């Protein structure tokens, strides 16, 4: 092998490497472009039947729990203090408010009662 030939060879290799790294950069770029899109698509997919059902379940239980707990609390207060039916009426309404608050909170529309140090709520 003559030195001339080997020089040509190394030049060729350098050229190939440059080409390779350029191609790699392009790939990385296109991957980056694609990843949020892919995530979004994934989100859309999973927001189909299963996810929608889960979301509906979550929000409805939050609301119902608020109303039920409010009514239960009012009923207990009435039983204890003999203020029937005012405790039930007032706490049912407050429970309704708490239910709406729960739903809004778990949907991420209203902030949590205090600033979360790490996580921005649900």
């Amino acid at each position: 092998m003559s030195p001339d030939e080997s020089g040509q060879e190394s030049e060729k290799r350098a050229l190939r490497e440059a080409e390779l790294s350029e191609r790699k950069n392009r790939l990385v770029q296109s991957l980056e472009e694609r990843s949020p899109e892919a995530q979004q698509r994934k989100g859309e997919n999973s927001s189909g039947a299963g996810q929608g059902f889960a979301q509906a379940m979550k929000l409805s239980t939050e609301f119902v729990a608020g109303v039920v707990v409010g009514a239960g609390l009012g009923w207990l207060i009435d039983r204890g203090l003999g203020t029937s039916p005012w405790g039930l009426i007032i706490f049912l309404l407050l429970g309704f408010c708490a239910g709406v608050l729960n739903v809004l909170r778990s949907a991420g529309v209203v902030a949590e009662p205090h600033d979360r140090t790490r996580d921005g709520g649900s």
Partner: protein
Amino acid sequence: MANNPIDQFRITEIVPIEVGGLNLSFTNSALFMVVTTALVATFLILSTGGRGLVPSRWQSLAEMSYEFVANTLRSSAGNEGMRFFPLVFSLFMFVLFANLIGMFPYFFTVTSHIIVTFMLSLLVIGTVTVYGFAKHGTKFLHLFAPSGVPPIMYLLVTPIEVISFLSRPVSLSVRLFANMLAGHITLKVFAGFVVSLIAADGLGAIGPIMAILPLLMTIAITALEFLVSFLQAYVFTVLTCMYLNDALHPSH
């Protein structure tokens, strides 16, 4: 087995025990709770017995579950939250295994009974309340009195916040229970369609052919149920972590 889709949730006594007028029988529900706990314990003890530097399949499964719960806990309750790791990990594994065991035909689903899930969530809320008061004292009550509200509004806001706090165990338990209950009933109903269509008189040869449709649906729902089993265990864990975060940082 009966065709009644509710029949699978019936509690039967295996070993009748009665103490002082209380029915403390060992039921099928209790049996499956024991099975769940035993299975989790066996899985973890056996899979971590090797302690290889290069984990075996079982060991990496155990490590994965550890990492998963630890990351969930860290991201919502911070590093301080790791002191609750044993509680959260036990809850996650128990709920996950109970849900998955329920997917076997003829097995009992422990988490489809509200009393079980309600006790689990009471445990969580009890921990939050006790730890919150023990660590922060009366400062824990700031949870019910958000700052930046005109004083007169506390009359209205505080009861609402208290109810909202008390409704957490209810919604936490109802969500898990309702998902498991609804899923298993749906599964049973569609599977029942297959049997009724094949057994139906008067349909002739069309019956078995039509039975393919609910059969396909049953397969799809089974897959969905496996997903729901995992998802509900995860949701339960995430919410537990968020409530524990309240105990750690009641006010900013």
